[in-house]
C-alpha cells in the first residue's frame, strides 16, 4: 500500500493542551473556513460542548451562516461522526461542509 502526501496544509493540531480546562480546537475547511475567517476555531471549555450536536448548535448560534449550508458534517479523528457522539478536546475535530471533489 502506497500512501503519499504531497501537499501539506497548516491545519493539523500540533500541540496538546495539558490544562484541565482545555480549549477545543476545530479544523475548518472550504466555506466554513471563510464563514469563521480562519482555518482553526478555538472553543472555550466553558461553552459546554460535549457532543457533535452541541457543537453544531453552538456553531449555528455563533455563525448563523452555518445554518444556510446544504449540510454540515463533523469528523472526529478523521471519521464521520453522528450527532449523538461524544467529543472532547484531545480529539482532532473538523467541520465538513458539502464536499465537491472530483
Amino acid at each position, binding site marked *: 500500500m502506497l500512501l*503519499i502526501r*504531497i501537499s501539506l496544509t497548516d491545519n493539523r493540531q500540533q500541540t496538546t493542551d495539558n490544562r484541565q480546562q482545555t480549549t477545543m480546537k476545530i479544523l475548518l475547511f*472550504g*466555506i466554513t473556513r471563510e464563514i469563521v475567517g480562519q482555518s482553526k476555531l478555538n472553543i472555550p471549555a466553558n461553552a459546554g460542548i460535549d457532543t457533535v450536536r452541541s457543537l453544531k448548535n453552538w456553531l449555528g448560534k455563533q455563525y448563523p451562516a452555518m445554518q444556510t449550508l446544504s449540510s454540515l458534517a463533523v469528523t472526529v479523528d*478523521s471519521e464521520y461522526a453522528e450527532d449523538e457522539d461524544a467529543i472532547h478536546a484531545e480529539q482532532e475535530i*473538523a467541520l*465538513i461542509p458539502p*464536499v*465537491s*471533489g472530483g
Partner: protein
Amino acid sequence: MLIKLVDHIDLNEAYAYLNSPDAGAVNLFVGTVRNQTKGKEVVHLDFEAYDAMALKQMEQVANQAMQKWPLVKVAVIHAVGAKEPGTPVVVVGVSSAHRDASFEACRFLIDELKKTVPIWKKEYFEDNSVWVNAHP
C-alpha cells in the same frame, strides 16, 4: 494501491502504475476543469483538501472497489490548488483481467469519491466565486 494528493496530475504515472502483465484491461477516468457552469464562464477552480482524512477516505474507496471486483491494481489521485479550465484534477483507474470489471470499478471509484472524500471546489467566475454544493 496508489493513493495520492498532488499539485499536478500526471496521467503517465497513473498508467505506468496500473499497467501489468496480469491485466487485460487498464481503465482510467480523468476529471477535468470545465470552462463554464450553467452558461457562466469559469476562470479557474481552487481545490482544498483535508489531507489526512481525504487520503484515508480515498484508500477506503479503493479497498471497497478491490473487494467488489477482481482488480489487479487501483489508483486514486486528486489534485489540490488552483486549476485552469482543461486541466485534469482527478484520476481514478484500475487494471483487471477483463474490461467489464474495469469499467464498473472506475465508475464506482469516482462516484464514491465525490460523495465521501473531504475535498472542496471553489469556482471563480469573472465577477464572483462560489463553493460548489455548499448551499441548497
